[in-house]
């Protein structure tokens, strides 16, 4: 049964991907991309990756679709010129596919506990998490503590990308300026059904986002997912009520502060480790008891991650939404 379900899902993925590439209507392609993200999220869930599925559903099916639509509104909805060097590309892509397919026969058997990927540090993480960190969700333990350096790097990449988008889109281009206030303030306010349903949903999405943020040690969740969910709630509010009211509720200066403070909080917790006489990002010295210190450190850096991700994703959204149609 699971095998059939898996094959069904994967086949749907391939069909969706082909449809995305074939369609000349970019609006359709973006909508299909949202469906593709949802399908791949279900796939991740079937493969035991609950945290990843949550992230992909919030980011891929929610925020990425909105950002692509924002970009389409500023550019064009149709591909005018279809394909270049069609046959040459097809030949190259087909031969590359065959090479990769040939390589798959050398891959370890699916689900094999003896596969090399399960040998090195992963068993150590699973075995030592209760002793050193004592949080139930091993993914959170690895993300926030064992591999805290990686996550710090990722947070700064997200931060930098957000700054990049704001630099690109807030500059006044040739003839293009910021959109007039009254034009951007409309949203879907006249449409009754989206408005009523959306307003009902927003507080619950926010609440779920906060739950995911603070329950991330115990169940699937954490700063990345929570940041994406909270940003999605504000984006939904902006789509219904218009940009102005969203910016009135959470102004751009607040978003900038969130971005910066989140990244600084993460780095600050790392430095606090050094100040208290241990290594960078070692949380064990934050409290008298090493395990309690780990808990404190994880909650703090997850809060930092959540703040930065929320701030960056919302700033990117506002940067696209505020850009004039050239």
């Amino acid at each position, binding site marked *: 049964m699971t095998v059939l379900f898996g094959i069904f899902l994967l086949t749907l993925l391939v069909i969706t991907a082909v449809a995305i590439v074939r369609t000349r209507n970019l609006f359709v392609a973006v909508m299909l991309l949202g469906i593709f993200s949802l399908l791949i999220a279900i796939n991740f869930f079937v493969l035991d990756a609950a*945290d990843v599925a949550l992230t992909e559903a919030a980011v*891929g099916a929610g925020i990425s679709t909105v950002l692509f639509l924002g970009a389409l509104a500023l550019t064009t909805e149709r591909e005018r010129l279809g394909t270049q060097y069609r046959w040459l590309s097809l030949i190259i*892509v087909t031969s590359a596919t065959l090479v990769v397919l040939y390589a798959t026969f050398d891959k370890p058997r699916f689900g094999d506990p003896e596969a090399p*990927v399960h040998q090195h540090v992963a068993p150590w993480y699973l075995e030592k998490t209760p002793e050193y960190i004592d949080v139930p969700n091993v993914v959170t333990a690895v993300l926030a503590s064992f591999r805290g350096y990686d996550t710090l790097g990722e947070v700064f990449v997200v931060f930098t990308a957000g700054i990049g988008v704001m630099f690109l889109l807030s500059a006044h281009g040739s003839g293009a300026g910021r959109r007039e206030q009254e034009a951007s303030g409309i949203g879907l306010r006249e449409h009754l059904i989206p408005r009523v349903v959306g307003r009902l949903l927003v507080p619950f999405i926010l609440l779920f986002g906060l739950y995911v943020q603070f329950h991330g040690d115990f169940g699937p969740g954490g700063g990345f997912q929570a940041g994406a969910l909270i940003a999605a709630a504000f984006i939904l509010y902006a789509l219904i009520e218009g940009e102005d009211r969203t910016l009135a509720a959470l102004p751009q200066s607040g978003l900038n502060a969130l971005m910066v403070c989140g990244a600084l909080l993460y780095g600050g917790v790392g430095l606090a480790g050094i100040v208290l006489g241990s290594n960078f990002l070692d949380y064990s010295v934050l409290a008298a008891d090493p395990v309690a210190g780990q808990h404190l450190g994880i909650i703090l850096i997850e809060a930092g991650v959540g703040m930065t991700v929320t701030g960056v994703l919302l700033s990117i959204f506002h940067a696209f939404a505020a850009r004039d149609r050239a």
Partner: protein
Amino acid sequence: MELLGLYHYWVFAVLLMIGFYAVVAKVNLVKKLIGVSLFQSAVFLLYITMSKVTGGTAPILQDGMVDPVFSNPLPQVLILTAIVVGISTTALGLGIVVRIKEEYGTIEEHEIQATDRR
């Protein structure tokens, strides 16, 4: 199980190359970015496929589990952060595309190159 495993890897290979095709063959810049997204998702699928252990469950420790088998948390951590980084970099790409549209009036690669040659 054997077939499902190979099928996962085959779907990975096909998705990867569908994304690659969109990047090399499509002229429209937004379509190219959609191709990059597909390519990226295929890599995510490969990692998560490798993290699966037969009979395993999500790596969340619970009391009262008898002899639990967990799937590998490490690839999940890598991909979890990669998804959020992926959307941020895609947004940066879209920002560049929007600026190109404003400066050149088009996002079709041929026309941009034609403008540059002039």
